[in-house]
């Protein structure tokens, strides 16, 4: 047969489903999920600054470099939010 009906897409992609779901009002669980979700960033930092960070980390017990940097970010965010 030379004439055929156009095939319709019956199901949408998972990303499109998620987009439809996210059109709804966010609830507490969404905010909690966001706070538990980890994102990755590449941080460009000078060798000397990193050396200083590592020196501070070495002086502290039970903290690694990532923890120390996160702590610094928390302190900065707290300072910024108290200003606004």
């Amino acid at each position: 047969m030379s004439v055929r009906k156009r095939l319709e897409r019956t199901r949408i992609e998972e990303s499109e489903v998620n987009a439809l779901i996210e059109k709804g009002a966010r609830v507490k669980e969404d905010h909690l999920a966001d706070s538990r979700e980890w994102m990755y960033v590449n941080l460009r930092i000078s060798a000397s600054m990193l050396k200083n960070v590592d020196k501070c980390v070495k002086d502290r017990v039970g903290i690694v470099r990532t923890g120390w940097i996160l702590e610094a970010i928390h302190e900065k965010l707290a300072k910024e939010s108290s200003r606004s």
Partner: protein
Amino acid sequence: MIIVVGGIKGGTGKTTIATNLAVLRSAAGKKVLLVDADEQKSTSSWANQRDFLDIATGWSTIQLGGKALRSQLERMKSDYDDIIVDVGGRETTSLRAAISIADICLIPFKPRSLDVWTLSDVKVLIAEMKPANPKLKAFSMVNQADPKGSDNEGTISILQECEEIKCIESTIGSRKAFANAAGDGLAVSEMKVPDKKAVQEMQELYDFIYKKCTS
């Protein structure tokens, strides 16, 4: 089978329906999961009341919500014969996520204008979510029906105009038995002195969903 009792209007008796269906389904020997996805957590309060009063409960009740509800239900559905999700009366990510994976979406309406006016928005929502879940069957019904007067029939005739959401003709009346049973952590079918009409109405709804819909 996953059933969502939802809608975008609060106070339509979604929790009463979800909890009573869970009791009846469990009594039929099915492994049931009752999901409280309503921010008011009324289903959980009812389940806690059962626990406090040491009432035998043959199913599990959990609190879930948000956009992750879809993946969580997807993971759990093979562990249960039936999942019943009670979603609060607001258009949230929880409601949309539940609709995206449910077999049946049951939307109760009170026989009042303000309630019926939400039908057009519910219709848009169901139509929007349908491509995400082509197997979804959506039903409307009158809950908390008046004992007399013409408002029940008027509401049914408006609900029947919507072809995308089929209206179930049997109604559930505005009966004190539902509230009294809930207060005792019970379903109407579990009361010591059951209100026969209330039990019959809930049984009719149960039969429609679990017998007619699935046959």
